[in-house]
């Protein structure tokens, strides 16, 4: 089993000091350590953005592809080898803007993936433009007059589209986030964690302080198997009233357990003679 230490790579994380991505990184390594996620059983995919740099800092096999396309790559990996744990690290620009179509369709198919959204409500890597998570009125380089658009609600969207595990955590709450990651991994199907991740450089609105002040843990008796209740809960977003926890958690067949099982490396020449009748 890998230890926290040997998940390190030769690269030192170069996120801005204080960036919420450090919390996600630490939580993931902690969970990996606890659960024994290593190169015998795990692969990660990442989008393009500050979040995507994570693949340079975790010594697990990884695929950092194109902006917005981490999900289809992950689905392809999982179909080819369902025994792999597949983690997807994506950003709000990556998953909800450029890759919005994949987000809803990957959820609806219930691919057995764990998807971690670095939700900083900003385009970090391109130096600060409004994202689909930025609130109405948000001022940034791309909306100097304030954004005119309602943000997307990634939890409601995931629930609506067909995700079977939907949760939220704040990136600073490392132990809880690590536990959620473990739970999401154990869940069979599309497991989605919206991580409230402060971008200390380009989004002063959603700071660590803001999330520390305004989040609360979902009630212990909340029924996470009820879609309507989950949807209602996901609409809550107000001062002191941002719920974190598991919103939705139901059992459904995963995409991978329904389809033909191919062997990841067994590639054989095939005899097609039996098909000729049709063409004769």
């Amino acid at each position, binding site marked *: 089993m890998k230890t926290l230490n040997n998940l390190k790579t030769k690269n030192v994380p170069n996120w801005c000091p204080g960036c919420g991505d450090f919390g996600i990184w630490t939580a993931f390594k902690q969970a990996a350590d606890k659960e024994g996620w*290593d190169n015998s059983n*795990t692969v990660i995919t990442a989008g393009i953005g500050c979040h995507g740099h994570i693949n340079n800092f975790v010594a697990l096999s990884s695929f950092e592809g194109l902006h917005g396309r981490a999900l*289809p790559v992950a689905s392809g990996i999982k*179909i080819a080898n369902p025994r792999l744990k597949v983690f997807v690290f994506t950003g709000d620009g990556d998953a909800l803007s450029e890759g919005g179509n*994949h987000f809803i369709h990957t959820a609806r198919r219930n691919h057995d993936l764990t998807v971690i959204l670095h939700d900083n409500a900003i385009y970090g890597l391109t130096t600060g433009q409004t994202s689909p998570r930025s609130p109405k009125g948000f001022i940034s380089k791309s909306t100097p007059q304030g954004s005119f658009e309602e943000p997307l609600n990634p939890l409601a969207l995931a629930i609506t589209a067909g995700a079977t595990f939907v949760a939220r955590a704040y990136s600073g709450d490392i132990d809880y986030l690590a536990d959620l990651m473990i739970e999401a991994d154990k869940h069979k199907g599309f497991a989605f964690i919206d991580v409230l991740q402060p971008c200390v450089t380009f989004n002063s609105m959603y700071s660590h302080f803001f999330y520390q002040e305004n989040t609360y843990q979902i009630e212990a008796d909340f029924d996470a198997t009820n879609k309507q209740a989950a949807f209602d809960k996901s609409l809550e977003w107000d001062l002191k009233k941002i719920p974190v926890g598991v919103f939705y958690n139901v059992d459904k067949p995963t995409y991978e357990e329904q389809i033909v099982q191919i062997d990841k490396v067994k590639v054989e020449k095939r005899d097609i003679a039996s098909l000729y009748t049709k063409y004769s």
Partner: protein
Amino acid sequence: MKPAFTFKIGGEAGFGIMAAGTTFAKVAMRSGYYVFDYSEYPSLIRGGHNVMQISVADEPVNSQYQTTNFLIALNQQTLDLHKNELIEGAGVLYDADQNIKVADIPDGVDIYAIPFTQVVKQAGGSYVMRNSVALAAALALLGANMQHLKDLIAEEFAGKEELIKINHEVCEAGAAFALEKYKSKNILSQKQNVVKQILVTGNDATALGAIAGGMTFTSIYPMTPTSNILHILAPFQEKFNFVYKQPEDEISAINMAIGASFAGARAMVATSGGGFCLMSEGYGLAGMTEIPIVIIEGMRGAPATGLPTWTEQGDLRFVLHAHQGEFPRIVLAAGNVEDAFNLALRAFNLADKYQTPVLILVDKYVCESHMSVVPFEYEDFKIDRGNFSVDKIVDYKRYEQSDTGVSTRTIPGISNYIIANSDEHDVFGFSDESSENRITQMNKRMKKLATCEETDMQEPKVFGSRDADISFISWGSNKGPILEALKSLPNANYLHLEWLNPFPSEFIGDFLKKAKRAINIECNYSGQMAGYIAEKTGFRFEEKNNFLKFDGRPFYPEEIVKLINNENTK
């Protein structure tokens, strides 16, 4: 003399023209003939004009012809549109129950009036069986072995005895009516020695090649002219143990295929130009991360939605240059169904060997035209996964330098630490923007193309004699009409280009330099291959030697022959 007998059936879209045509082709094939068919239809589910032409010959036949020897007209429009194709001695069969005007059929054409509905009714059949009457009557008049038609019906409705019986009766009635009223000709008579053949389209051949070649994953978003590949593959997933996935769009298609290939699968996608636009970012991602994938790109009339059900060869330059910057891409073009099978079969080995995308260009004409061929032979073919290891490798370097440019590939999940990174990366796969690393990795990737050129690239084939007066040069599906034209042009030969990248520049340059007169033939507006040849070899075609067509129709052998003969008599 035209080296084929050409049969045509036309009518309104949605009335089973293609099915009837294919049945005719199979009867001819089972009777010992070679056949080729070509169909035209609009981008509509109903309405509009559908037509299918079948060339039948004693020798292998490679294309449709402009003239028609026998026409079944299911409606007036068919007659109006095609009557002038009918040549001396031809026959035309039409529905006498409709008020069809046959007044201006050319002289010397036999006219067969068959009351489709009446015959169906009398035989106790239903309205939808009218095509059977027409087909049976035509086959009877052409002296065909009617047992083949009966067999085909029995195979189609296998298990439904009632349906078989009534269809057989309708056919018999149609044949009987025709023979009673008209004299039969001895054209499609049963041959003694029947070589076993299959009747396949380019799409069939591609799908079969992919199955034979060991494909284990394919994601295809439907798009004419390659949608049929998915229709052919989807039912056989369990039988052959592969996954067909319908993705939400073409972007997802190629990224899923890349993911699957990264995890060890043999992956393929298929699309047309519009979908390929959306795949073009993933195309280069595969190049950069050195992931093998096979891409089938089926060209059609363009730009934009264009002429969705018509043919063109306008995407040559696009696929050669799609995506920002440069990466090694192997680009091949299929000339006919046999090529389509062989290229699809072998593309997976090439992709694995060079760990890069292999793209096969086809077009509507080759994708959807049937040709009869002897069952595909690939005994010598072996799966070659290239430099691929499932061993545990310590200090593994995914992008290590090598003489060939190829490094050892492995897969996740077997304790190797493997990094794929769309950023420029070092030998491990970590992002690295230094000048030295950039130069090393670019050279490494591009080296693969040079290796492929030396090791795997095939010389183009020359058909016909080496020292001809006229040398045609072309690529893709023009192969068919040109080979047919050669039958009437003994002084011409044909250089067929299959490898487009890497490109056999030297061979082509030599050939063209030696050619007495070289003529470039292409189905696109500007002569893209002519430009590519000029770039690569320095040989420039004079304008009069560029035969171009861009109206969505393939070349006809007669057009090629006429162009040459008219010039010669000038």
